[in-house]
């Protein structure tokens, strides 16, 4: 596992590094960057799993660059002094926001969110940042009908019948998405408001019919839970 720490204060960077190493033990590779520029270069050269980011680096507002990060395939945890920016950060789709000053417990709590399965975020995400050539587009969460896993990518199926590709895996997105989204299959996450009824097909195959008529498969293991939820 690769973790990148972007932090311009050497002492704090060391502290984060030490605590990260303590949590993940030896199977972790930690990269350190003291500026956004060098951080971006590090990400391009090394596919990482987790980013620990200080929002305000060397006097620059990290929010412009946050879009770049959250569109990536890795999860992002913010460690920042600007606690008032926490809500905005969650809206952009970060996994956690650790306010400075922090202790081992608080940082570990964030790491737990990263390692655990299923939904982890407080459900505050409003947008998913999607890479578009060299720019980024923020897709509002409420325009998403369902999300389909496609290998290491995901397809966001939108209300206007368009499909956007997202760099994060279905598992990674599931952690960020709010309560209104439900994993119904190993390859599908559904916006629950779109669910219409369960259709039973020949051979005991279950499907979910959406309000727009689309049919999505329901995982065998998920069927009972979903049926209950629908009633």
């Amino acid at each position, binding site marked *: 596992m690769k973790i990148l720490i972007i932090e*311009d*204060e*050497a*002492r*704090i960077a*060391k*502290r984060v590094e030490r605590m990260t190493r303590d949590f993940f033990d030896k199977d972790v590779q930690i990269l350190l960057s*003291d*500026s956004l*520029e060098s951080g971006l270069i590090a990400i391009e050269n090394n596919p990482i799993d987790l980013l620990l980011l200080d929002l*305000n680096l*060397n*006097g*620059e507002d990290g929010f412009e660059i946050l879009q770049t990060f959250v569109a990536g395939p890795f999860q992002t945890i913010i460690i920042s*002094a*600007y*606690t*008032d920016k926490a809500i905005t950060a969650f809206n952009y789709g970060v996994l956690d926001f650790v*306010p*400075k*000053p*922090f*202790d081992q417990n608080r940082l570990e709590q964030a790491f737990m969110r990263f390692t655990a399965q299923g939904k982890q975020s407080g459900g505050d995400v409003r947008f998913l940042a999607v890479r578009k050539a060299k720019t980024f587009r923020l897709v509002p969460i409420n325009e998403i009908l369902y999300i389909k896993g496609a290998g290491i990518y995901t397809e966001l199926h939108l209300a206007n019948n368009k499909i956007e590709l997202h760099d994060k895996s279905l598992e990674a997105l599931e952690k960020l998405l709010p309560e209104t989204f439900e994993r119904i299959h190993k390859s599908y996450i559904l916006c629950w408001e779109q669910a219409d009824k369960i259709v039973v097909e020949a051979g005991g195959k279950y499907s979910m019919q959406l309000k727009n008529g689309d049919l999505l498969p329901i995982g065998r293991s998920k069927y009972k839970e979903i049926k209950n939820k629908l009633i």
Partner: protein
Amino acid sequence: MCTSCNYYKEYVTTDVTYDVDYDHQKMDWGKPDSSSFRFETNVEIQKRKNTSQSLGLQINAFGAFDVYWDGVLIGRNGQMAQADRVEVPGTETSYYQIPNNLSKLGKHNVVLMGSQTYNKEVERGIDVKLKDYLQLQRSPLIVVSFMNIMAGAFLIAGIYYFFLYLNSTRKELAVLLFGIICLLFFCLLIIEYVKYYLDIPYNEFYTRLKIIGWLTFAVSMLIPWYFMLQFEFKRKKLVLFFLFIVLLAVYIGYYGHYDISAAYFTITARFFSIVIAIEAAIRKAKGGLIVAAGLLAGVVVNYFMFYDFGLFIAFTILVLCMLYLHTIRAKAMEEAHNASLLLSSRLQLELIKKNIQPHFLRNTLTSLIDWIEESPKEGVVFIRALAEEFDIMNDIAEDTLIPIRQEIDLCRRHLEVMSFRKEICYEWQEERIDQNETIPPAIFHTIIENGITHSLPPKEGCIVFCFKFTREKQFKTYTLLTLAKNRQTKKDKRVGTGFKYIEARLTESYGTNWSFDSHAVEKGWETIIKIFD
């Protein structure tokens, strides 16, 4: 010995007023060497309603003379020259009561017998006016009372603006000019109407008119000048010169014609003022439109009213315009003052915020926790440095200027705190610092903050801050050189709020007498602050 002239006037007006038009009767002086004269005229009283009220004569004439009504002596103006006695000059306008028993209907005879020793070259006519005696006495009183109200207003305004000028630190020429204009106006009004309550000997009659002429000349020069200052008119000198030439031309061209030249003086002044005000109105200068309107209103008043009343009313409108302008100015100054107060308190707040803003405080605390957890002894040193920085900040929070040593101490404490946080070695060097100098608080502190943020950590050694002071004849210079490699930034972030703070502080203490320059140099970053004497 006596020359005689006949003067006859028929009274066709109603008996209430007995008003007559001015009638200038040329004198036939006969023997030019003789100073004595006799003047005779007939008047007719056609009807009277109120016979209980006395009639009176107003006589406008030069000389010293006795006045006879139907052969009866009714009054004397001065003492006419006689063989053994020199003339005691009478006054130009004199009033005489006519005995009731002699004011019956029908024709009457007025005879003036006297002498005119002075001003014989001026061939001035003799006017005789028959009127209700009470009214003759009262009408000048009414005029004078109104004119004195105006004069009082001008006097108070004049004194007020003189005081304003004397006690103001900025010594604005416009304020002084306005005070002078008001006082000249006061004088003009007093001199103009002094004739009603001072008996001026006829040989001094023209002295008063001359004084009025000069005062009008001065006022006509000053008013356009004032407006040019007020409206920040360009080419003031050229216009003033041109105005002076025109006024001088009027003075020379109409020399001796006092009323006409005074009228032309004011017309000239008004023309120039209107042009200036209209130009200001077009430029949308503050108050330009109001003054232009006021001046044009003055023209209208003058068109409908008798010359000197109209003039003074027009001038009063003008002064009202000027007063209005002054209040506009006072308001602008008050607003500027409030803005500066607001700025000062904003800067104070900005200074206090430096150490409590989350970026500083929370990052410092995070490092501090780490130091205490990992190496408590150094952590204590860190805490002490932080406490000292806070102490200095607290001491200087309310000052606009602090001793340079205090600023340096603040910088050094900050560097110490930052070296704990960044684990970078920061070195402070200083050269030729004059301990007696003062500086606005935390401006070099701000530059150092920038230097720390925007410098790359050195591979080995320290980031050096080199602080120098030099004094030249007309200015002093502070130079702060940061010896380090600069970080690459997309935008020039250094020119941010920090620089605004520095510039605002310099303006607060030195007005415009400073320069601030901060730029990358080969060795790192250089900031130069110059303060001019």
